[in-house]
């Protein structure tokens, strides 16, 4: 049932501020596995946005949808599908859950990110409750808006540490008229080579994924354009149409084993390759390194970064950032949440917990 719980949510935040306590922001709890290893634990009370839900404004010709943060992605997408539109950033739905607020707060973009943009690219405006319990609006519902600092996009990937998202406006795009997936039997090095060649050409590619000897390539656009590109690129196989959703939501068996890392790299980086699932034309890689420190060193040397895909993933301002960036991150956090009400364990205090 849709409902407006904004006042109650802000009141809870104000209460925490007065009492010196903290809270853990939870949507549908589908991504808890990215933060719960981080000492958040059950002792920090949860504040749920799940019943603060509902689409507030949607006019397809504006290419914008505005919804309360607790709106479930599946409900949002049902409305978009009716108008033949979609969220181009393809937020993952782990365990088939996920809310709009959670998608923005965790900042995870799907298989089409290099071609169709990221979560933060799509964010146009937010209403948030800061650590004082104030309801603040930033950005708006229009594509071009440079009035004031871009506080809205800053929320993407902040894991709720800069405020409790109440409502969000995101850009949406028309669903492509035609979608087709090509497959190529190859090895990871050749797969990267192919992706590199295509990157400089105007093909209607909207996703790539190399896994287990096969490079999958998604084409999308006008029917004639997709047909022409399929002819030009070739390929040697047909594809299960659910592949991209399974990749997005980590339902492929590749993701099932423990020890997984996610890395973001310059797409042409020649390592790591072995045992990798390579998406984003090389820009995103998933694998299981034997030695975490060595992996970190390798990624840094290649101009990338990565970390274990586990409960430590959500520590945005904590470990593994240069000290100077941690310092500014902490200051920024305190500018929004001086009493450290929100998700305190995701933004350890300066000089606090060592990692």
């Amino acid at each position, binding site marked *: 049932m849709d409902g407006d719980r904004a006042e109650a949510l802000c009141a809870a935040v104000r209460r925490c501020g007065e009492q010196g306590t903290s809270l853990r922001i939870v949507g549908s709890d589908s991504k808890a596995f990215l933060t719960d290893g981080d000492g958040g634990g059950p002792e920090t009370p949860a504040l749920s946005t799940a019943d603060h839900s509902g689409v507030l404004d949607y*006019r397809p*010709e*504006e*290419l*914008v949808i505005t919804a309360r943060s607790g709106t479930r992605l599946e409900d949002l997408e049902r409305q978009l599908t009716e108008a033949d539109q979609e969220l181009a950033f393809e937020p993952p739905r782990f365990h088939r859950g996920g809310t709009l607020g959670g998608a923005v707060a965790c900042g995870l*973009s799907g298989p089409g*990110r290099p071609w169709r*943009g990221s979560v*933060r690219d799509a964010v146009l405006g937010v209403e948030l409750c*800061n650590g004082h319990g*104030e309801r*603040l609006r*930033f950005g708006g519902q*229009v*594509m*071009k*808006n*440079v*009035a*004031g*600092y*871009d*506080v809205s*996009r*800053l929320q*993407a*990937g*902040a894991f709720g540490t800069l405020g409790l998202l109440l409502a969000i406006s995101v850009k949406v795009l*028309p669903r492509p*008229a035609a979608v087709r997936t090509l497959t190529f039997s190859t090895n990871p090095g050749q797969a990267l080579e192919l992706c590199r060649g295509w*990157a*400089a*050409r*105007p093909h*209607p590619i909207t996703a790539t994924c190399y896994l287990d000897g096969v490079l999958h390539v998604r084409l999308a656009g*006008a029917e*004639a*354009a997709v047909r*022409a590109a399929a002819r030009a690129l070739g390929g040697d196989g047909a594809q299960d149409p659910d592949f991209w959703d399974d990749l997005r939501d980590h339902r492929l068996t590749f993701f099932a084993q423990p020890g997984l890392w996610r890395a*973001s*790299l*310059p*797409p*042409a980086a020649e390592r790591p390759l072995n045992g990798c699932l390579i998406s984003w034309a090389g820009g*995103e890689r998933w694998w299981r390194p034997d030695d975490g420190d060595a992996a970190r060193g390798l990624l840094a040397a290649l101009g990338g*970064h990565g*970390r274990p895909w586990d409960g430590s993933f959500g520590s*945005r*301002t904590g470990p593994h*950032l*240069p000290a*100077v*960036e941690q*310092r*500014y*991150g902490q*200051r*920024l956090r*305190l*500018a929004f949440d001086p009493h450290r009400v929100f998700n305190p364990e995701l933004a350890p205090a300066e000089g606090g917990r060592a990692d």
Partner: protein
Amino acid sequence: MTDDTATRRNRVESLLREVLPDGSLITEPRARRIFETDGLTAIREVPWLVALPETEAQVLAVLRICRDHEVPVVPRGAGTGLSGGARPRADGVVLGLSKLTAILEVDLPNCVARVQPGVRNLAISEAVAEHGLYYAPDPSSQIACSIGGNVAENSGGVHCLKYGLTVHNVLGVRLITFEGDVLELGGKTFDAPGYDLLALTMGSEGMLGVVTEVTVRLLPAPPEKRVLLAAFAELAPAAEAVGAVIAAGLIPAGLEMMDGPAIRAAEAFVHAGYPVDAEAILLCELDGVAAEVDADLVRVRRVLQAHGASEIRVAVTPEDQARLWLGRKSAFPAVGRIAPDSYCMDGTVPRARLADVLVRIGELAAEHELAVANVFHAGDGNLHPLILYDANVPGELGRAEALGGRILELCVAVGGTVTGEHGVGVEKLDQMCVQFDAPALAQMHRLKAAFDPAGLMNPGKAVPSLGRCAELGGMHVHGGRLPFPNLPRF
């Protein structure tokens, strides 16, 4: 000037001279006057000093001296900004990045270029054109404006409907804060750990730090383009057709609109062959692979015809396309020929409200006894009403300012914004008070303080003080319209 001030100034000047090469510190009054304004020429102030460092180390040294002596710093790119973001201060140093013009790296395998902030926007595309690549954002000043300035303003352009703004096309920056810290934000990757300070830097108008390096994405140049001109006998159906094109699932590379006064001014100026009896034209550019462009062209044509376009022309050859664009690109100087002065607005409105807003702008103009010409980025609802006036006629400037204020209030009232791409600078500080409430503005001030506790990095720009808004609020209620105390009465 008191003795103390004079001593302090001499001290700062000699320290700057020590860290900057010959010719990189401008002290002579006539030379400093060159920097007294940016593209918003109505607002001028001669800076105390101008520093033009040649290296990042010199940028750091200038900032250190200014920090030690509490001197405000105003960063400046090419000086083409339209909102006074680079307006100098009589007690401050202009930190010009115009000598940092190196293209540091073109990384073809990763389709990125790493450049210094003074590199011109167009120079990036020119440098990579031989590889079939380009940098997509194309503000109208792209021949002159610098990438550092584009970052500061989050610049758009004619093609941002399809290709996005600066924020969508920059992957990394080096940001130097007033405290002298170097933040490496982003890089050649599609995301970065930590807060998205890269996104926050975009459009921050030089208030959070100085950008000394920018990594931009390069896209494959679209092989085919078509430009279509549709003429309409009335304004409203043209505006409605804009929303209909988008609603049909089409994303043109550009979708621009000109109204009757703008059409006739442009035609008289450059003879682009525009239909001078039309009350509106739409210029629609489609790009991509041939199959896609041809398919989209058929659909766009159908939508425009259904909305009553009286004439549709399609330009296929680059020469014909350039001719159709010529009128649009010359519209601002063309309008300048029919009125002694003009005042350009920059509000954005939801596309569905375009028709109402244009009609209402016409009514407001009549109420203020002034003419308005509209030339704008219709596809993303970014209006550029040009208010025509004559500063030599007593009262006209005042009426133009009042009308401008009413137009921007109208944009906010229908769910839009006071600035789509020109930035707030000093020009739209008052309108920010209409768009944001005091707690939101206070939050922005706290955000700035996190980067610049001393408050000396481009102070007084982009976010109005709460005192200013409170005062304005009182006047606003009293007078019934927005005054513009920051614009000089000339």
